[in-house]
């Protein structure tokens, strides 16, 4: 227990010290995770809503698969992205392995299924509520997708935050495709892993505390926006 409190003290000292290297790592983590959350949402939200309102063969199989992908092992995603982006792989000519772009690709692949699976559930509930009304207005299922997404936007915000959380906490895949290169692809999670490797557990835990604070700040910000906009729109 004492060690944990000591680490919290160290975390505060790190924040107070405003170390530029640490700030760079925090900013990079934030940028990449937000980019992945947005990209994952751009794929996952429409996909989830389409599956929710659509009626097509194989829909149930797709839903089960999508839900199973919630448990997608990140190391596997990391390996697949590594093999794709490796010079010896099909996308090797892009030359983006061990760059921040590779991290965003891997994180997006992890975030998209989460957003899609959870958005599917949210959209399906909204669709059940509005199906009659929308059909009577002659709105096709496909055209109902944006309406439903907009109507459920506040619940979906939480879904996107879950995706952001997944991206920000990711370590396995990020380590494999990013390479944990100092100043280039070292993010909070891989920095924590490195300090743990060096046996500097108090520093590792202090970095962990800072990561939690950052995620907390993002969530608080989104919550504030949501409150503000809910009040405005009634």
């Amino acid at each position: 227990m004492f060690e944990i409190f000591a680490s919290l003290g160290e975390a505060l000292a790190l924040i107070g010290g405003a170390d530029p290297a640490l700030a760079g790592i925090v900013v990079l983590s934030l940028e990449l995770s937000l980019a992945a959350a947005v990209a994952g949402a751009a794929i996952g939200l429409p996909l989830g809503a389409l599956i929710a309102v659509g009626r097509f063969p194989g829909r149930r199989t797709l839903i089960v698969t999508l839900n199973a992908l919630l448990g997608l092992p990140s190391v596997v995603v990391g390996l697949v992205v590594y093999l794709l982006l490796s010079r010896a792989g099909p996308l090797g000519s892009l030359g983006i392995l061990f760059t921040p772009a590779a991290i965003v690709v891997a994180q997006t692949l992890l975030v998209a299924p989460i957003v899609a699976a959870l958005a599917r559930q949210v959209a399906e509930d909204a669709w059940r509520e509005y199906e009659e009304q929308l059909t009577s207005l002659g709105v096709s299922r496909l055209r109902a997708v944006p309406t439903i997404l907009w109507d459920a936007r506040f619940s979906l915000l939480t879904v996107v935050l879950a995706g952001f959380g997944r991206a920000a906490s990711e370590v396995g895949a990020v380590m494999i495709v990013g390479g944990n290169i100092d100043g280039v692809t070292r993010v909070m999670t891989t920095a924590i892993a490195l300090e743990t490797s060096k046996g500097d557990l108090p520093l590792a835990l202090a970095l962990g505390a800072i990561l939690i604070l950052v995620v907390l700040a993002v969530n608080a910000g989104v919550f504030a926006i949501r409150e503000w906009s809910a009040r405005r729109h009634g």
Partner: protein
Amino acid sequence: MVMNLPRAFRHFGLAGIAAAAAATTLLAVPPARAADRYITVASTTSTEQSGLFKQLLPEFEKASGIEARVVALGTGQALDMGRRGDADVLFVHDQVAEEKFVSDGYGVKRFEVMYNDFVIVGPREDPAKTRGGDVVAGLKAIAAARAPFASRADKSGTHAAELRYWKAAGMDMAKDKGPWYRETGSGMGPTLNTASGMNAYALTDRGTWLNFKNRGDLVILVEGDKRLFNQYGVMLVNPAKHAHVKQEAGRKFIDWLVSPAGQSAIAAYKIGGEQLFFPNAKPGG
């Protein structure tokens, strides 16, 4: 039934803002931060975790204007990265595997850069009675006492060396290992964390050990054996195999490492007054 896109966008007020934010974020992080003056170096966890690169790379960048990006892996994995063409330069420590890498045509030429040594660490009370200057006798004592031993088991240079020492002790770890032989399958630091947690013996390079903080009850027990010598080599990945290898910048990095400037930068790296790596480049490789 094509979706009306502009209308959909009006519906997606929030999403639109988010998309704009995403675009800005992606612009802020260009895919390959300039295709210019950087090389990718595949190296070992021992060089990274000992803190050597933090000292070395800034000096090289200042001298050459080239950024060296280090991905730290076990030697086996680093060599594999070179074979796939994902690194420009390899800086590793498994002479046998390195020479094979070059003779197979994946590397251009191997240069010796520096050495340090391996040590066996273990619990202070040394229940297996390993203390001394003989690595083979030390391992035999561990096996005889069936004392817990944490092995890298990750095809790294250190793992390869460990298996050679076991062989010299008359043991083939593929079949002679017992439950006391714990294969962590991870880097040097994580393996030391495991050893520290279990009060087990482990073979480690001295550099990682000196920089390692979570020692618990572990101390150095076996050291000074000539066989514990640990040579590091550097190689350019063969541009004939992978045309995109940045050979000019890569060669500059290698030339600098074996130059008097690079060699003295290596010698200058100390922790608590103790030198971690000893430069031993020969003129002409």
